[in-house]
Each structure stands twice: as structure tokens, then as C-alpha cells.
């Protein structure tokens, strides 16, 4: 008689769902052990949803557990009282006890349904809220925590790590609650029948715990090897697919084929090897189960009469043993999953410990309308680890001019403009915009008066209207059309299938880089900023869009301070002021005409660029 959850969990094993027998993947590779109670305490604090009505949950679990005990008790009652060799058949007793048992089974089934619904609802609500809480926290972190290298990990925290928890909640967590109650309940009923036999059962079962743990450990290790082998195979296939032209034109097929075959074979061997431990669990459990039943029959038959044991109790005992083995088996199988889930939970919770460095001001200052002057004094910036990204930056930018920021990759020019939008705060020094310290400026005001057009023109998977309108909440379609129109881009909208209602696809991929920047310009126009920051695209923009971009930008920058991260020196050539960055510092400042004759870094860059592009001018 196996509980239905055991049915459920064993089925996963039988159908080869390895998620239950192995740990989930952890991207950063660590399988840290954190004290279960510490995690639980922290988790409960973060998710108060979990505590709601814990008493009711336990009460329900008790009722469900009693369902597993009903049949063995009924058998004992009938054999001992309804069908004795001395009094013959007591049909009245048999029918009434059977009807009671039937009613109990129905009650248990109904309760079980309610319990299950309740547990799933609590778990899923907790997970939903936890996901949102962690996501919100990540949103508030500074740029320094959103480095490219860490993006994968942060994303995993809100996706796969939470999924691990969710999968655990659906099976492992429920198993812990109900199985513990069933084990305790069964042992209690057993002890009432005969404490001596109960001790026999415990004595025989006890060694199974270390054996299960050892098998689990092996399984965990072997499945890790399987995962490595699978990624190796996938890496090889990915090469074979990506390098298809190279492989064909250089006749490299046979080498690649043998590499693939090796990876494929290794994967197969490891999969079979890992599965051996899963296969081993069955005979281990069966042996122990048989030994226990055998032990009861022997001890009960030999010493039963002296202990005052009835045959009904003894038979019930045998059935209770089978009730007991299912939850033990299941807890054995969820043990490893539990550890991983706890580690995952801890990882998710740890995200909430990352400090929020950019503190938004309360009662902040609202920036005035119109072009804004900028002053930067003694600015330094570095990430938590590593050296200075920016050092000793000083500059004064008068209101309304066009500034070009130039420098090689890694010179700090992009970081500099990010600090101007307060994506992070400087480590030292001050930024003053429109006469106010940037960190005192009210959040809303900052978001509208300082507008950035990103390099890749990133857009959200929505319509063009949605992507533009959010710059000024409450904007209508007409406002959006007007923004495009005032930049002279009406014609471009007309080339689109659904005009401003065109869906741009994930990351805006249905539009070209140049077109995405056009949308970003319209968004900036709608916000009517005093400071406009433009990160030029590095990749080639088709000529038609390029012309549109230049003229739209000309119109947009009118009456505003504009800072462009310039990848094309033609932009620098047209600007009022150029800031040249090198290794985190501003090394040259001035107009194109001065800098080009200086024989400094700018002059070299400009020469190289000329050689690269300019034709007969």
C-alpha cells in the first residue's frame, strides 16, 4: 500500500525524470551547504505568506495521514472482533466498522484534495511574491551590479533558481509535511499494538538511512558528470553547426565526426553509470522491506503469545510496515533535492542582501525646464572590485552646447555618461546638473529631464507607441505622432506596416539598429529633456536611416544640452566641445579645430578614421 505521493515520486523515477533524482543545475557551480534552519528562518521572514494558517495545514495533514492507517486498523478490528474462531461471524460489527472506514476514506479523500489545493496555492503565492520581491530589488541595484559578467547569474536568480524552488514546493515540501505525519502516526499505532515489535521494525529500518544517503551522494556526483558530458556534446554539436561552411570548404568533416562520436559515447556511458545508482535503490528498499516483514513474522510468532499479541494485530502490523516504507523511501529521495532547494532558496534570498547604492532622495529637487549646464568636480569611479574606471574627472559644460565624448573602447567614456544619468553614483566627487547636486534631484524629474538614447537602441517587446509614450505618462497616440512629426520622421512611420502600432519584437529586433534609435529619439522628444545623452551605434547604419538620424538629432538637440558618445569622428567634428578620454581620464578638451592640430590622441584617432573612410573630398 503505497501512498499516492510515493506513486507520484516513484513515477518520476520510472519515467526518467532526472530532476527528482539529481540536483538542479547551479550556474555558479557552488553547492554550498547552509544550515536548514537559518534558511528557513530567513525565508519565513521574507515570505510571511508561508506562515498563514500553519496550524490548519498541520491539522489537515493529520487527517490525510489517518487515511493511510484506516485500512490496517480495520483489518485488525475485523480479524480480532468480527471474525473470531470462538464466536464466528459478527456481521453487524463487520458492516458497521466497514461503513465507518468507508466514511473515513471519503472524508480523507475530500480533505486531501483541500489540503493539496491549499498547499499548492500557498506555495505558488509565496513563490510569485518572492520572485517579484527579488526582481524589484535587482531593478533598484546600481549599474555596478549589472555588469555584463553577472547578468546571467542575476537572471538565473529570478528564473531557474526560483523554478527549482517551485518544483521543490510541488513535491519535496509537501512530502516533508505529510510523510513526517504518516511516519509518526504509523509508529504510534504500531506501538499501541506492540512496542516490542515496533522496536524490531525500527532496528531493522535504521541502517537504511546511511545507505540511502550514500547512494544519493553517489547519484548526485554521477549526475553532475552527466551534465558535464551533455554540455560537452552540445558544445561540439554547436561547433559543428556554426562552423558548417568552414568544415565543408576545408574538408574537416572526419575530425569533427570523431570528436562528436567521442562526446556522444562519453555521454551515453555516464548516463548509464549514473542510472545504476537509481536502479540500485529498488533492491535496497525491497530487501529492507522484506527483512522487516520477515522479522515481524518471526519475532511475533515466537514471542507473540507472551506479549499478548492477537493474530489481527500481527497482520495489521505487517500492513502497517508497508505503509511505513513508502514515506521513508520518499523522504530518502527528497533529501538531496531538499538540500539543493535550500541552497537555491538561500541564493535567491542573498540577492536581497546586495545593498542598493543609489539612494533616491525624499523631497528631491525638480530640475528646471530648458537646457541644463553640467559641472563635474574631482570625480572618481570604481566597481566594488578592481581599480578606477574613472579618475580625477573635472569638466564644465555650459547649457545648450553640443559635446562629443571620444576615446578608445575601455577608456571610460561610456561609464562617464552613465554616471550623468545616475545609473550609479561616483565613488568620489560631485556631479552638478542645472546648479543642483545630481543625487538631490527628484527621481521623476531626473527621468524626464535627462534622456539617454542607448547605443543598440534597445526597445521593449511592445508597439512603437508603448515604447515612446512611457517617457511622459499619460501621452496619447497623437502626442506620439507629434513627437515623430516634429523630428521630421512622419515619412518613416508611413513605411511601417502598422505605423506607430507596429510591434517591434523582442529587444526591438524587428527594426534595424538605426530605426530603433529613431524611436528612442522620438521618445526623448516627447520627454522634452534639458540634457540629452546619445550613445552612437557602432555598427553600420544603412545610408537612408543615417540621414534621417542626423537630421532628427539636429532638430531634437535644439535648445538642449547634448552629449554624444561619438564613434564616428564626423560627429565630433560638428560638435562645440570634445572631451577625449584615455584610460579613465580626460586627456584633451577643446574644439575639433584645436585638437586636430595638437598631435595628441585625438589627432591620431582622426587620422586613422580619415584613412579608413574618407574618399576624395
Amino acid at each position, binding site marked *: 500500500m503505497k501512498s499516492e505521493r510515493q506513486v507520484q515520486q516513484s513515477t518520476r523515477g520510472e519515467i526518467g525524470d532526472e530532476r527528482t533524482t539529481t540536483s538542479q543545475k547551479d550556474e555558479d557551480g557552488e553547492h554550498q551547504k547552509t544550515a536548514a534552519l537559518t534558511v528557513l528562518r530567513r525565508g519565513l521572514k521574507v515570505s510571511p505568506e508561508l506562515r498563514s494558517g500553519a496550524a490548519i495545514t498541520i491539522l489537515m495533514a493529520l487527517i490525510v495521514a489517518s487515511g493511510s492507517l484506516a485500512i490496517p486498523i480495520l483489518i485488525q478490528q475485523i480479524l480480532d472482533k468480527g471474525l473470531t474462531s470462538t464466536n464466528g461471524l459478527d456481521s453487524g460489527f463487520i458492516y458497521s466498522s466497514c461503513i465507518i472506514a468507508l466514511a473515513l476514506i471519503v472524508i480523507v479523500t475530500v480533505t486531501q484534495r483541500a489540503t493539496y489545493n491549499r498547499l499548492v496555492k500557498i506555495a505558488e503565492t509565496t513563490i510569485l511574491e518572492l*520572485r517579484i520581491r527579488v526582481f524589484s530589488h535587482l531593478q533598484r541595484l546600481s549599474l555596478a551590479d549589472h555588469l555584463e559578467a553577472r547578468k546571467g547569474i542575476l537572471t538565473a536568480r529570478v528564473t531557474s533558481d526560483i523554478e527549482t524552488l517551485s518544483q521543490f514546493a510541488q513535491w519535496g515540501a509537501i512530502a516533508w509535511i505529510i510523510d513526517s505525519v504518516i511516519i509518526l502516526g504509523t509508529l504510534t499505532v504500531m506501538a499501541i499494538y506492540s512496542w516490542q515489535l515496533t522496536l524490531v521494525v525500527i532496528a531493522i529500518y535504521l541502517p537504511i538511512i546511511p545507505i540511502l544517503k550514500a547512494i544519493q551522494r553517489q547519484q548526485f556526483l554521477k549526475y553532475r558528470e552527466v551534465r558535464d558530458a551533455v554540455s560537452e556534446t552540445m558544445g561540439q554539436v554547436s561547433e559543428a553547426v556554426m562552423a558548417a561552411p568552414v568544415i565543408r570548404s576545408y574538408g574537416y568533416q572526419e575530425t569533427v565526426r570523431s570528436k562528436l562520436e567521442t562526446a556522444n559515447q562519453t555521454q551515453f556511458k555516464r548516463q548509464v553509470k549514473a542510472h545504476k545508482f537509481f536502479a540500485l535503490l529498488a533492491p535496497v528498499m525491497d530487501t529492507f522491506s522484506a527483512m522487516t516483514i520477515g522479522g515481524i513474522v518471526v519475532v511475533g510468532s515466537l514471542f507473540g503469545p507472551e506479549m499478548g499479541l492477537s493474530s489481527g494485530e500481527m497482520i495489521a502490523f505487517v500492513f502497517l510496515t508497508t505503509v511505513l516504507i513508502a514515506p521513508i523511501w520518499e523522504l530518502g529521495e527528497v533529501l538531496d533535492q531538499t538540500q539543493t532547494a535550500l541552497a537555491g532558496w538561500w541564493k535567491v534570498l542573498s540577492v536581497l542582501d546586495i545593498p542598493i547604492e543609489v539612494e533616491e532622495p525624499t523631497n528631491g529637487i525638480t530640475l528646471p525646464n530648458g537646457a541644463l549646464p553640467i559641472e563635474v568636480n574631482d570625480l572618481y569611479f570604481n566597481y566594488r572590485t578592481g581599480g578606477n574606471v574613472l579618475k580625477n574627472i573635472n569638466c564644465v559644460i555650459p547649457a545648450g552646447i553640443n559635446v562629443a565624448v571620444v576615446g578608445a573602447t575601455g577608456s571610460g567614456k561610456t561609464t562617464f555618461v552613465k554616471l550623468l544619468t545616475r545609473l550609479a553614483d561616483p565613488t568620489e566627487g560631485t556631479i552638478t546638473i542645472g546648479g543642483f547636486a545630481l543625487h538631490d534631484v527628484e527621481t521623476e524629474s531626473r527621468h524626464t529631464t535627462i534622456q539617454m538614447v542607448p547605443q543598440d537602441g534597445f526597445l521593449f517587446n511592445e508597439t512603437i507607441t508603448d515604447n515612446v509614450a512611457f517617457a511622459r505618462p499619460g501621452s496619447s497616440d497623437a502626442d506620439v505622432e507629434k513627437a515623430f512629426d516634429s523630428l521630421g520622421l512622419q515619412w518613416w512611420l508611413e513605411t511601417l506596416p502598422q505605423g506607430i502600432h507596429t510591434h517591434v519584437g523582442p529587444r526591438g529586433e524587428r527594426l534595424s539598429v538605426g530605426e530603433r534609435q529613431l524611436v528612442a529619439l522620438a521618445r526623448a522628444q516627447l520627454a522634452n529633456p534639458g540634457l540629452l545623452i546619445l550613445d552612437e551605434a557602432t555598427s553600420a547604419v544603412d545610408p537612408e536611416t543615417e540621414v534621417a538620424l542626423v537630421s532628427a538629432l539636429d532638430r531634437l538637440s535644439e535648445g538642449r544640452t547634448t552629449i554624444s558618445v561619438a564613434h564616428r569622428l564626423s560627429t565630433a567634428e560638428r560638435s562645440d566641445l570634445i572631451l577625449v578620454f584615455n584610460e579613465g581620464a580626460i586627456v584633451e578638451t577643446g574644439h575639433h579645430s584645436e585638437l586636430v592640430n595638437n598631435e595628441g590622441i585625438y589627432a591620431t584617432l582622426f587620422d586613422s578614421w580619415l584613412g*579608413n573612410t574618407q574618399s576624395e573630398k
Partner: protein
Amino acid sequence: MQRKKQKQTHLRRGFSLVWRSIRLRPGSHTVAITGACLFSLAAVALTRVLGYATDDVIIPALDNDALSHKALWTSLLFIIGVGLIRGLGAFLRRYFLAGARYGTELIWRRQLFNKYLDLPMTFHRSRSAGELLAHADNDMIIASLALMPFAFTVGTFFLAIIALINLLLIHPLIALMALILFPLLAWMNQIYSRKIVSPAAAVQEAVGNTSALVHESFDGIMVVKSLGRSDQEIQRIRKSANQIRKHRVDVGKLRAIFEPAIFALPSIGVIFLLMIGTWLVDKGSLSIGELVSAIALFGILAFPMRIAGIFFEELPRSVVALDRIDSILELQSPQTHSQGKEELKTPSVSLSIEDLQVHHGDHLVLENIDFEITAGEIVALVGPTGVGKSTIADLIGGLQEPTKGRILIDGTPIESLSAKARKQCIAVAFQESFLFADTIRENIALGRRFLDSEIEEALKIAQVFDFVQKLPNGIEETLGERGVTLSGGQRQRITLARALVGSPKILFLDDSTSSVDPLIEKKILENLRQKTNVTLMIVAHRLSTIKLADRVVFLNEGKVAGVDTHTELMKLPAYTALVKAYDNTGTAI
């Protein structure tokens, strides 16, 4: 009617999937099925042993004080013996199933990989890499998933039969009860399996959607933060994550109905069994041991029934996944077309293209392509994006066949050259500079044999020798994830060295120097001019590159729009417009 028919085909195709696997791994499947049947047999036997222990040991010992030691030890022996056999059966089933399933995957995967390597380039151009990788990964796992519960399912049918025979031997009335219970259980399982499919798929979809949203949101984190869009993003995620919750709760609701019911059914059966059984015992036509044995048998039924249910639940999914894999396996690898025997003797060769026409499916890509390149000349290929420049690279590199027209090398048609001569004569450096996760030497040699001095010479011409020499392990340095990472320009120069190492007579550079600094590019082309006799075609997107060429082939609208020097071509308005655009958008930094 239609649906029923469709279901039947699903089932038939499901069985043909299993049959294919059995033919690939007959041994493993046989042992696994034997194990499953052994398990069923032992499970039923164990209930019989319990009955025997009840009648011959427990009742005499406890009720009549007449314990037979012989019966006691016999039943102990049987309990443990049958328990071990049951365990052995489960072990054999589980272990050999792994061999059957993963072994089948191994063979399918090998067949798939061979197709990936042997199908022509047009195949790769028509499918995304992601799709091809999914066939090897996810599709493969799902296609073989239904194999896992297969042996157990066979064992379950066997179990049902022997359980019925066993009960018939005990008492016909009890067998009749089982005949009501078994189908009821099977029927409930079937409904459960059918109902859970769509909400379970909805969960998967919702998880995928949320994941995509989170990815997008973090990709655009700069925009989100600098424009103050965080609240909207949180709302977007909440809405999407709430879908996961909703669908999970739906799945939970189904589970909450069926799983307790499927569990309760055998218990209810046992209660009725007790009512009828005790009456039969009283009448003397049944022993208590036989009743105990029947109760135990009812108790072991739910689990195998569920597994069988899952087998039928998984089968259609696996069939669909295998269909996707088969769509590749069914493609015919091309016959290696008749190879010519001609060899090339001159050190420097000319290349001429005569009246070439190329279709991709019904789509006309190139037509009337006619031009000639004299030996040792450097020619730039210029044209707007998508005009067919890379198609010409494919044709010269032998990755595609033209619909019409000829490519001649020194007057010899390309297809009458021997395979070896062709590979030695022509080298193409492709647009994507692909490097393998291997050493620099292997990346350049690609299985061909070269002296160190030859590799060094190629690296020198490609202007990357100094860089390679400074690496700790020189040309033995491993590249990629586990080795050094290179900049775009360095990658392109290594792939250039790969093309140069065999001293080809014709070199086609398909925009393969785009990330190389213009000054270095100039040096590379000067090296090629001075140190080799190579006839060079270079796809150019930069004015600096165009200016390094002797002549320019200008492609426009799928045709050759002009072949001349750059200065002469500047008289064509279309050419001037294009070059002007390169002028403005060229990047220096």
C-alpha cells in the same frame, strides 16, 4: 470519429517509435522487460507468501498456540527470497532501461550528427542553428522519454493478468471484484493523463514567457533605469509570473482531484473485499490467509497502473519530437558528384565566371554574372547588403551549385578539377570568423598537415604572428571558453591564416577583415601582393579596402552593374551613393 481515428494513428505511431528502439537495442529491452515481468511475478508471489504465513504461521502461533517452526522458517525464507527477486527484477528493469533509452538516443544522435556534417550548405542556410541544436538536445530527450515507462507498462499488463489468475484461483467472487476495480482504475488514470496535458503545457509556456521577459528586462537594464521604467517592468513580470501561478494552481487542482481518488479506490476495494471476504471465510470457502493475500494484492495495483497511464500520456509527445528529428534524418545526403581529374600546373591562375545564375528555391538570387580576374589581380566585390556577395563566396568555395553557368580556373571548369586540386587551389575566408575550441595550430591546420614554418608564414602574412608568439604556449595555445579569448580583429586574422596556409592560388575574403584595423589590413594585402601569387577577391564594406584593390566588381540588384577601377565606377550614381554611405557610417573607434 475523426478524433478517434487520430488517436489510433498516434498510438500506432507511438508503438512504431518503441519498435524502432527495440530494433536498435534488442538486448537491453529484452532484459528490461524480463526484469519488469519478474518484478510483477514476485510482487504477486509475495502476496501469496503473506497468505501462507497468515494461515500456517501467524494464526496457529497466536490463536491456537500451535507454532510450526518448519512453517515459520519456510515463510521467512520465502518472504526474503521473493523480496530479493522482486528487487532484482526492479534493478534489471531500471538499469537495462537506461541502456535501452540512452543507447537509442546515442544512435539517433549519431545519425543526426552525420546528417549535420554531410548535408549540403544549403541545408544549414535554411535552418537556424538554434533549431538544429534543439533537435540534438531537447527533442532527443523528449523523443526517448516514452521509452522509460515502456518495460514497466509491459510488466503491468503481465501483472494484471497474473493477478487475475491468482484471484480466480483464490475465489471467483474476488476475481470479479478485481474485474470491476482494475478497469475503473485504468479509466481514471486515462482521464487524469488526458486532462493534465494542456495545463501542464500551459505551465511550461508561462515559465518560458516569464523567463524571456526577465532576460529582456535585464538586457535593457540601462534603458529601464535611466528612463525610470522599473515599475512598469515589475508590473510586466508580475502579470507574466501570475500566469505561471495560475496554471500551476490549475495543475494542482487536477492533481488534487485525481491523485487522492486513485489512491482511495483500492482502499474502497479492500473494504468491500473485507465484507465479502469475511462472509466467505465464515462459509468456509476462503481462508483468512487467502483474504490477507487478496487485500495485499489490491494494495499493489495503483502504482503500476499509474506508470502505464504515464506511458500513454508521454507517447504522443515523444512521437512529435521524433517527427522533428526524422525531418532531418529523412533528408538524403548528396551523392558526391563525379570528380574531375584535372590538375593545375601554373603557379598563378586566372578566374572567370561565365553567365552564372543562382536560385534559392524559386527565388532568383543572381543572374548574368560575367567577369574575369587575371592571375595575381586583387579585385574588390562591392554591393549593397543582400545582393549575393556571400553566394558568390559559396559558389567559389564549392558550398553551392549554380543553376546555370560556369566558373573557370585558368580556363578549366571548376568541376573538372580533382577534389584535391580544388581544395588546394581555392580558399575562402568566411564572413563569420569561426574558431574551434582547440589550439591555434589545429584551428589553422584543420586536420591538414603542415610544417611549423608554413603555419608561421601564414600567421606572418595575416599580421598575427607577433601576437601568437607572445602567448605563453604560442601556436599550441587553446582558444575559446577554456583558453584565451581574442578580439574580433585577432579572430579574423587567425581565420585568414587558416585560408592562407595551403598557399591557395585563389583566395576569397568574404568581408573577413572587417574588424581588422585599416592600417593592418593594408599591410596584409601588401604582403599578399609581394609574397604570394594569389588571385584575390575581397568583399569590401570600407572605402579603405576598396582603394587597395586593382579593380572593383560592382553588384547591384542581383546583377553585375560594372567592372572597372574605383575612379571609373564613381561615375555610376548607384555606386557613388553606396560608397558615400560607407563614407559616413564608417567607424573609427
